[in-house]
């Protein structure tokens, strides 16, 4: 399993939350396809120098959300999502980013039209 996670301990965002977001992102982006086995809490804890409690919390919340599932006894793997779920999983992280961008636009008194235009331009410009 080739997955890389990085935790910014100083950001104040709880580590379990960062791990969940990164796993969700990698699942949504197809980097962790359905059926991929997740590293055990133990192994990931050693690999990332991360408290095992943090990892088991992230895993169990992702299981509850249906992103991961336990099969064949204990193995935790990426669950196959329905097309509707795939859509939601993709749009959610982008929506979060855009919500922050929208607040900033309003604070800076950038109009709706101007903001949308900017997003379009940014979207089309390569490697921005």
């Amino acid at each position, binding site marked *: 399993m080739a997955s890389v996670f990085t935790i910014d301990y*100083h950001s*104040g965002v709880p*580590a379990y939350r960062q791990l969940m977001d990164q796993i969700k992102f990698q699942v949504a982006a197809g980097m962790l396809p359905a059926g991929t086995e997740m590293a055990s809490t133990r192994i990931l804890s050693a690999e990332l120098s991360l*408290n095992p409690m943090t990892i088991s919390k992230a895993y169990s919340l992702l299981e509850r959300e249906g992103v991961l599932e336990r099969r064949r006894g204990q193995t935790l793997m990426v669950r196959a999502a329905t097309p509707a779920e795939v859509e939601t999983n993709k749009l959610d992280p982008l929506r979060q980013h855009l919500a922050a961008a929208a*607040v900033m636009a309003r604070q800076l008194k950038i109009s709706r039209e101007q903001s949308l235009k900017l997003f379009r331009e940014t979207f089309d410009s390569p490697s921005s």
Partner: protein
Amino acid sequence: MTSSPAAPFVADKVTKTYPGHTVFDALDLEIPAGHVIGLLGRNGAGKTTLLHLAAGLTLPTGGSCRTLGRPTVDLDTPELNRLGLVQQEGRFIEWMTVTQHLDFSASFYSRWDRDLQQRLIKTLELPVDRKIAQLSTGDRQKVGILLGVCHRPALLLLDEPMSSLDPLARAGMLDFLLELLREDGTTVVISSHILGDVEKIIDWVVFLDTGRAVENAPFDVLQESFAEWTVTAAAGGLPDTFSEPFVLARQGNDRLARLRVRTRDPEDRARFAQTHRAEIQSRSLSLDEMFPLLAGHQQEVE
């Protein structure tokens, strides 16, 4: 992970006084098993006293302490075998070499782990043939760590254990503490002012302030309860003061204010935005930033 459901340390209405000075007055505290617990607070908040009470090095003036299920006044070999204490400045037998001292200390424990000892000597790059008296402050601290952990305690108490270690040794030490939790389910209580280190490994916070435990909660719950809001007036100006009880500190002026808040209730935020006709950007706080808020030290309005 093996973790016992019983709390490895319980303080029951503990009072601790020294002549002319009260550290704790009826302190109630229960420390959960199988966590890495950050014992935090300002200087003089009672962190070292609490660790000494837990280790049985000092006894409460009133009330009682239980460590590993036994009143600390009665701690005996079975408990002491499962208890580790690393002090900021350990006391050693100065004329011994590091190796001699480790052998000497190992002889008191049935469960001394030689492999672990060798591995830590290597990780921490400890000069084993030198006499204790000739060691640098950092190397003395490393000896203290080895003496505190090689018997693989079930409860490990660390009082500023890394203050003199360089960043590489500290990183090795942090990894090792997580390993203890993974392998043995060790409960680790660590007091440190190097918050950037602590926040990498803890999953629980006990915050002492003027002799009271003002927090005893999972670290992520605390992280998710504080935020900084950057507030801008959407129309008109911001008021001089915000009366919402979750606003702990404020900087800024009537057009832009930075608030430190203790709420993550989206309704609080929505109501605040509506009441003050304001836009809010929220971000999380690091442990450094949370610290003054936990200590009840609120930044003044500028």
